[in-house]
């Protein structure tokens, strides 16, 4: 019986997450390359992606690899993007003791703006360095857009400072990614099955120094409850690197199958 490879579009993605221990569920606290504090994340100059985690380890929301250090299938990579994501509402609290809380409203801007501005990605296939580029040069092509907010008197009375922040790296449009084909002028990057690929996130010294100065744990979100109590819920910050392209898999039943 003849087998035939067919082409299917598929993204490959992997994520680094920073979240306090209170916000880690299941085995998340043991996931390699995830961190519970900003200083711990900043202590390492390089962070590897597509190298250590799988869908089974990290969950499909953050990774869709079946194998941690090999490609699951032959893949034609058309584009690469990096997304720095965080919490979109700015009522972030950091418990400090006295005064009770701080409002680190700049934290999101730092994470989703300054950090990609001062870090880089090195993308390798096997031992070949395919690309070295600053992260803001690798827009993900997706992310929140628009939005605005005006403060009402009820908010000043009840919730203190608040605001929304819909931040993306570049215009969140599907084609706004780093294009290996240069608008179709050259072929996509062909990655064999079982090849090793890696994206290394490289933090600049400024990044690492700034992260070392951050409070130990990421901030928490603030919820009001109907019994006038408050709930503090851990925030979660992440970096997702994605490859968009076409995978080769064995033909399955389709309308076009013969």
């Amino acid at each position: 019986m003849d087998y035939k490879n067919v082409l299917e579009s598929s993204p490959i993605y992997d994520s680094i997450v920073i979240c306090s221990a209170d916000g880690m569920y299941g085995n998340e606290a043991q996931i390699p390359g995830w961190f519970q504090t900003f200083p711990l994340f900043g202590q390492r100059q390089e962070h590897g992606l597509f190298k250590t985690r799988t869908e089974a380890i990290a969950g499909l929301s953050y990774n869709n690899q079946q194998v941690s250090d090999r490609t699951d299938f032959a893949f034609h990579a058309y584009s690469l993007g990096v997304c720095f994501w965080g919490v979109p509402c700015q009522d972030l609290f950091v418990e400090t003791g006295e005064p009770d809380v701080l409002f680190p409203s700049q934290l999101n801007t730092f994470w989703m703006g300054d950090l990609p501005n001062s870090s880089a990605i090195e993308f390798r296939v096997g031992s070949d360095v395919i690309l070295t580029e600053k992260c803001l040069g690798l827009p993900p092509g997706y992310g929140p857009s628009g939005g605005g907010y005006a403060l009402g008197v009820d908010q000043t009375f009840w919730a203190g400072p608040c605001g929304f922040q819909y931040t993306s790296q570049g215009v969140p449009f599907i084609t706004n990614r780093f294009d290996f084909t240069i608008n179709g002028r050259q072929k996509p990057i062909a990655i064999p099955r079982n090849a090793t690929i890696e994206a290394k996130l490289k933090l600049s010294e400024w990044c690492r120094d700034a992260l070392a100065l951050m409070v130990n744990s990421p901030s928490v979100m603030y919820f009001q409850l109907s019994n006038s109590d408050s709930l503090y819920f851990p925030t979660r910050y992440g970096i997702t690197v994605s490859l968009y392209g076409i995978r080769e898999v064995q033909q399955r039943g389709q309308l076009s199958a013969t």
Partner: protein
Amino acid sequence: MNQEKTVMVGGELLNVGEAFTLTDTVLISSHVDTLSTPVPGWFGTFALAGAANKLPFFNVRNSAICDEAWNNQDTRDTAAFGMRILSISVRWIVPLAGNPRENIAVPPYYIEHYEQPPLWTAFMPMNSALILRVQQDEKLKAQCSMLSAGSGIVTGGFGQGGEAAGFLEFQSVTAQGNMGVPHQRNKFAFPEVIDIPRRASVNAEIIFSDYAKALLSHMTGPGDVTIYQSADSEDTVNIPAIFGVQVELKGQRLVQQRGQLHA
């Protein structure tokens, strides 16, 4: 126009391709509990949605079960016609007229949950994933944020009016954002078309991470959006806030040729 095949059955029948979008939606609203006919897979609270293992699409509802605004399927669990899928999109629906409020017993008698729309639109997509299946084949596994909506609201600005700082406790003005630029071409496109035979089973499911489930379990409501009826009146109406997730498959459907200019 694509001519797919010709079948002779007492005359020449011809399948033609028509631009089409297959849509299905999961709603989360207190309104769900008051519907005349319960809709499977819809939820009255965030907590219930978070408690579900997954949100299924395209194999649960049809347009007769819920309104056409939310679903346009003729059949509930199989494709009503052959389809060629070109793109997929996920839209995170939030109330647009204001933030949901929760009534409480002490002054000012409500809590405005301004954090819920941005968390739903801009944070849940980062902490959830979608699997698209045709029959038994998994065609796509992706973080939901990568599947931009391709539609949404483009809004203007806002300002803090006198009432906001004055004696009337007007709720603050909100302009909700989108996941991705709301442009029809801004959807996750399949470079290789996915062909779906007629009567094949198609389904998508959204899976929340454990973190997102825990966050949903702590979110109250959704409550109501309060709207003042006129500028000189403090009479208000409360509209149930609607949150939801809408998945669209865009492409061509293959149907028998009907009378057109080119027929």
